[in-house]
């Protein structure tokens, strides 16, 4: 029972990732792609969590946080790039 539900949940997450992938490919604008990428990251986190439940192991729990950190930082960097054209400013001008 539980296993079935988990499998369904896992495939739904995969479906969500695939749909977001479509958005990444089609665009049409850069922010669209970034949004979709961010969403993939978030779904990946959920996927890993479900996966560790399926496998009954704690070994993957670190991955959740790491993927979260990476997704956040990359989204941040991409957003800055879209907005200002650089990633790290030398000196804030305000």
């Amino acid at each position, binding site marked *: 029972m539980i296993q079935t539900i988990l499998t369904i949940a896992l495939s739904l997450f995969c479906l969500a990732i695939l749909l977001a992938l479509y958005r990444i490919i089609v665009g049409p604008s850069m922010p669209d792609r970034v949004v979709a990428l961010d969403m993939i990251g978030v779904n990946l986190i959920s996927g890993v969590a479900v996966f560790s439940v399926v496998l009954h192991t704690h*070994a993957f729990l*670190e991955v959740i*946080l*790491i993927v979260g*950190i*990476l997704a*956040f*930082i990359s989204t*941040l*960097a991409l957003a*800055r790039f879209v*907005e*200002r054209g*650089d*990633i*790290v*400013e*030398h*000196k*804030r001008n*305000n």
Partner: protein
Amino acid sequence: MKINDVILKTVSKAAVLIIFTFGIYLFLSGHNEPGGGFIGGLVLASAFVLLFLSHDSETISDAIPLDFKKISALGVLIAFASSTVPMFFGQPFMSQSFGYFDLPIFGKTELATVTVFEAGVALTVIGVVVNIIFSISEDE
């Protein structure tokens, strides 16, 4: 054009705190579980990267007055020096030893000489990553 980053700055302070905690946790758990110097170092470095992203590089280098090139060198030095120590006790290079200690808060803790080595690795990774961010950002 004035860009107001209050939300980002506020949140990133909290996020950096979390990342630091997690990084140190990963670094220490490396002996028996996933983690260790390299991964811990990377996570710690990502905290620095986050700081660079949310603030500007000058503010950060004023706040943390460290030469990260020297930090990575120091890391390598620590790693190799700690591996060298056993040679003076007639053990092969990179031999390690560990023991269990009763520490006040953590209870029974395992401490191994390899942790020193890992610390060196972590420092190196932090230094290198931050350096790369620096060198890409500085000569615009």
